[in-house]
């Protein structure tokens, strides 16, 4: 009987593509690559702030974490059954390196930055993402992103550079915002929302 159970589990694991261990969805890379503020053709590195993701995971919120995996890191969320459930849904994911616009200064305080002047806002236009949508196979479902939104990733720059090889800041948070009706690849009210457009 035990042998049969083991065989059944192995079969189920194979069908559901159980390649991930239970906590894999919270094992984030330490850093992430992005186009540099000065020159978008040159990549730089930022620390991936994970404290808020862990806080959200502890209260059962997964959506913003799935957005990080599928839009910032450009991979499916490492959760059980994800690959199997979404195997027939085509469509490329984006990653932070695909950002097409960058603003600096969010015109409001963020922690010790009184006016948010050291905050970068990277803008992406993802076509696909993963949403928190539990079913019998997996909790993650690949969906198309509405055309009238853009995705913004915020980075807090370090006060002093750690040197040429060091990370230049920390990715603090991210979310979708409505796109500007006149400039659909940019956030609504982008001219008053941010201080400067870098590229």
């Amino acid at each position: 009987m035990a042998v049969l159970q083991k065989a059944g589990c192995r079969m189920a694991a194979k069908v559901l593509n159980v390649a991930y261990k239970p906590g894999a969805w919270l094992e984030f890379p330490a850093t992430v690559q992005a186009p540099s503020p000065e020159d978008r053709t040159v990549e730089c590195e930022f620390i991936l702030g994970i404290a808020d993701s862990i806080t959200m995971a502890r209260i059962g919120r997964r959506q913003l974490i799935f957005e990080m995996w599928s839009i910032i890191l450009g991979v499916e969320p490492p959760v059980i059954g994800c690959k199997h459930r979404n195997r027939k849904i085509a469509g490329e994911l984006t990653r932070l390196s695909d950002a097409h616009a960058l603003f600096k200064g969010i015109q409001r305080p963020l922690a010790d930055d009184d006016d948010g002047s050291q905050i970068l806002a990277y803008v992406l236009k993802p076509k696909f993402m993963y949403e928190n949508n539990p079913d019998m196979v997996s909790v993650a479902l690949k969906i198309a992103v509405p055309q009238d939104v853009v995705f913004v990733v915020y980075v807090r720059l370090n006060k002093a550079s750690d040197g040429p090889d060091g990370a230049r800041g920390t990715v603090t948070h991210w979310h979708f915002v409505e796109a500007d009706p006149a400039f659909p690849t940019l956030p609504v009210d982008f001219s008053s929302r941010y201080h400067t457009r870098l590229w």
Partner: protein
Amino acid sequence: MDQHIIPDLSAEYVPAAVYLDDADSVEYVRRDVACVYRRVDGILTLVLDMKTRKLNGFRIKGFKNFFLKYLQPKYKLLDDDFVPLVSAIEEAIQIVGDQIMSDPERRAAYREARRMAHDDRVCIEHMPMAA
């Protein structure tokens, strides 16, 4: 992550308002779904359900300064005290005060956020620490 504290993927989200350190914001949503964030001003952002565009929650930004400067002294809070979310949004309304009176959209946004905080009766968990 420690194996003993790995959040269970089968656990359901129980609506809670939490302080997010890196984002320096308190965020509350009723449902854990994909959302669009609509900026109201430098303090308040409404969180809308991406599919329906109906209000799903809100975010109070720059919360550390707001908490240490206004909420903590006013309510004489100790480290383990809970702050009702409705108190935080009411304090924010006090701060923006006259500015929202002359702007119907901002006024409506604050009113919606306050109503949600009042109706849902949640407290803010994990408050910011003084530097």
